[in-house]
């Protein structure tokens, strides 16, 4: 073979044999300086994804017949803010050594307009977590303000609206989800269709367009029963006060089903109405109740709209109808601790965990994000195929997302610890 670096016989072999000695020498010559293990990349990753941070309720503002806006600010470290409830806290929650560690330097993470956060706290005997879309713009979050909209629906929204005064401390999970405009995936015009508090992600998008952190056109078609049910003021986004709403490509169409009023459309969100706002560069985003999705999807189908350009924000998986309610024994392992509780076949496992006051990790509550990924040790269960976003190997090895899983026998599961 032709390996020859030098004409001296055996030189190449000597070089090869001498490489370790040379490596040793080079290491000797390297300074024993302190190691840098965090770079801009690592700091940005942490800033965008801090995990759970502590925040406090700053103010609450009713904004419609059944919706309340809640403003959050980062908890100051050692702020002595009122923590809701007592009893089981997340791991490390009460450790004074970690006091202040979860404070986030006076800002909330920058995010993509349309994303949601998760709020967690103790409410009575339960430890609850719920996802809420963000109203604020990404820049407002950086400035330390995060607003969400809460629609009165169940136990946690009622708690937030009626029982959690300003100053209440909550855990806030980092902004998540892919319900945001993507310049590659989505077209340049978003036809946003919303009902109820489902308008929230679009309020954030309209603010983001206005402040320049997002760059696309948006037409919001909002369906409500009456004017009193509209939880936002269109004037804030397209009126004089908002400055250049229309010039920036923002348009709002409100459709009232039970009231006729000037400046509002009357009726339902039908194909005829929608086609006025669809151009050849349009993607559709929907956020609202499932019944609205079914209705609007049919209307869009009748227009032959490309279904791969329609995105729906998924709703939480709720209770299911069963012919007979059955109670099962649920054995839960969190690390080396074992809990035994009751679980009902009409409620998801996460609901059973929350009711028992066990701080269980959960983020999206609709089966899709995988944050609550847990191992089934034993037992039968049911997952509706429309809520089953598990990986193929999860099915093979028997893992579940408790937020979308109903028990069908006594069960034993191993869940990850809530360790913000």
């Amino acid at each position, binding site marked *: 073979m032709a390996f020859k670096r030098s004409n001296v016989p055996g030189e190449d072999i000597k070089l090869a044999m001498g*490489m370790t000695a040379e490596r040793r020498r080079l290491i000797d010559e390297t300074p024993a300086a302190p190691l840098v293990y965090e770079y801009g990349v690592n700091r940005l990753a942490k800033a965008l994804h801090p995990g759970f941070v502590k925040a406090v309720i700053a103010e609450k503002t009713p904004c419609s017949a059944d919706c309340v806006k809640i403003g959050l600010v980062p908890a100051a470290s050692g702020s002595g803010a009122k923590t809701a409830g007592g009893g089981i806290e997340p791991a490390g929650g009460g450790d004074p050594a970690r006091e202040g560690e979860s404070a986030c330097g006076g800002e909330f993470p920058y995010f993509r307009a349309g994303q949601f956060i998760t709020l967690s706290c103790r409410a009575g005997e339960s430890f609850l977590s719920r996802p809420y879309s963000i109203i604020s713009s990404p820049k407002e979050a950086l400035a330390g303000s995060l607003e969400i909209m809460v629609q009165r629906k169940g136990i946690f929204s009622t708690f937030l609206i009626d029982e959690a005064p300003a100053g209440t401390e909550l855990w806030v999970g980092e902004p998540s989800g892919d319900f945001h405009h993507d310049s590659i995936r989505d077209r340049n015009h978003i036809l946003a269709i919303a009902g109820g508090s489902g308008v929230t992600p679009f309020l954030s998008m309209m603010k983001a367009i206005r402040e320049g952190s997002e760059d696309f056109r948006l037409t919001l078609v909002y369906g409500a029963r009456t004017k009193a049910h509209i939880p936002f003021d269109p004037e804030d986004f397209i009126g004089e006060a908002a400055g250049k709403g229309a010039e920036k490509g923002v348009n709002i169409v409100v459709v009232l089903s039970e009231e006729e009023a000037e400046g509002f459309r009357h009726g339902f969100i039908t194909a005829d109405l929608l086609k006025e706002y669809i151009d050849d560069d349009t993607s559709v985003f929907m956020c609202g109740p499932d019944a609205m999705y079914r209705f609007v999807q049919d209307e869009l189908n009748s227009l032959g709209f490309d279904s791969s350009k329609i995105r729906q924000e998924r709703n939480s998986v709720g209770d299911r109808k069963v012919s007979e309610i059955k109670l099962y024994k649920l054995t839960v392992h969190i690390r080396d601790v074992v809990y035994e509780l009751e679980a009902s076949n009409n409620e998801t496992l996460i609901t059973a965990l929350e009711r028992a006051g066990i701080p269980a990790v959960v983020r999206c509550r609709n089966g899709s994000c995988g944050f609550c990924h847990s191992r089934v040790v034993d037992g039968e269960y049911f997952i509706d195929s429309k809520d089953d976003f598990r*990986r193929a190997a999860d099915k*093979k090895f028997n893992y579940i997302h408790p937020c979308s899983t109903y028990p069908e026998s006594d069960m034993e599961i191993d869940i990850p610890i809530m360790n913000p």
Partner: protein
Amino acid sequence: MDKYDVIVIGAGNGGLGAACRILNEGKTCLVCEKHNIPGGFATSFVRGRFEFEASLHEFNGIGTPEEPGSTRILFEELGVADKIEWIQLKDAYHLISEAEGYDFVMPFGREAFARANNQLHPDGEKYVNEFFDLCQQIRDAMAYIGETKGRPDPAVMMEKYPDYLACGSYSVNEAFEALGYPKEIVDNLNTYWCYLGADGNNLSFLHYANMIYSYFTKGATIPKYRSHELSLAFEERIHELGGDIWFNSEVVKILTDEEGHVCGVRLKEGREIESRHVIANCSPHVVYGKLMDSDAVPERALKLTNFRKLAGRGFTVFLGISKSAEELGLKDHNYFIYDTADSVKQYESMKTIGNTAAQATVCLNNADPDCSPEGTCIIYMTTLFTDDAWSSVGKEDYFKTKNKVAADMIARFEKATGVSIHDHIEEIAIATPETYARYCGHPQGTVYGYESQYYDGLMNRIQMVEEDRFVPGLRIGGGYGERLLGFPSSYKSGVNEARRTLRDMEKEGR
């Protein structure tokens, strides 16, 4: 239980392999993982109706049940082989390189690959066969060195493996120059360079030759259910053997006693777990820089760690496409799309954001037609950054920057293949160095550990593995280990560190 024989930090490939090996000997073992699932990079994620593979392009070293590769044998020993379903890949790759006008598909198999080189040069087959003979000698020599536990008889080496010794100090480019092969053949043999991520002037020829020979002769596989299947297979095995894995359980401190011996770990929330032995499946930069008190870190550990060079930082675009591969006209599983076949030039241009000089792109459906719903397909495109370019991207520029790089990569792929995909993108996810840093904590978002540099290549690391450890009771395995990056290497490195830990324990017991 607050006491284990061994604690493993990190449930990446190295950590999972290590835990199985420890548990196989009847010792107690706890794996602490900061994320909520096992695997590190060996994982997958779901967007809409698509499940994306997070990192694996192809897995070399599995072979077939009849002719098992070394990793299949290792998986059998660890008790995970039966838990994994493998898909054998048909062809090696489709190389498209703009500067040279290359556009060809290369098959797996020693004879088939050698023969296919005749389309590049009339004597292609002859050159490649000569190269493969050399590779075989390199592998035999490495096996012999292994058998002698690193103490080979020099006379045997001189007699049986003279070429191994002769090229031992050569870089890839030096070796190919010395061999004097035509440019087309060298370019083709250089195609896999991005799997190791060091350019041809710095990459050890022994390491590279060893790897590509294994690819061409043994072929490659993928797990049927993405690499999440591998990770869950290991997790299941760990439970079967009575081991524990705790998720969302970040280790923040490795504790040492007055003698400087490991005595336990502290978790994020403050809980401490006792153990005399820790195997860390994470970056030595993090172990010595963050997880240990500075006065417990020997000076030479700092010198060694500072001596090393962080390797490629990952960037991947994951696409769920609302058309089938067939409808699009994509026939191959594995595409390498290069500006130039010159790895030194590619490496240079990958230092900054804005030049996507190289991409390794997979159309998964061409290996597994069932991997996504009918009428759809999954494509993922990976490139590397060879410097810390992403550290200067700010919060408010981040999303735009990553979409710009992704759009470039998609456009490059379309231009090279003549296939239009941009209007059929139903789901997209983009992983940047920030993403890899977020999930696995690696400095700068490296996905390749420490670069295979001339003096920090495979053989040097293996030969100095005992010299490169400093804290009694602590061993570091995985992608930063002595076998360097890659799926098979990281499992093997973890298992090797477990074996060494077991030996340490045996010595202690005496």
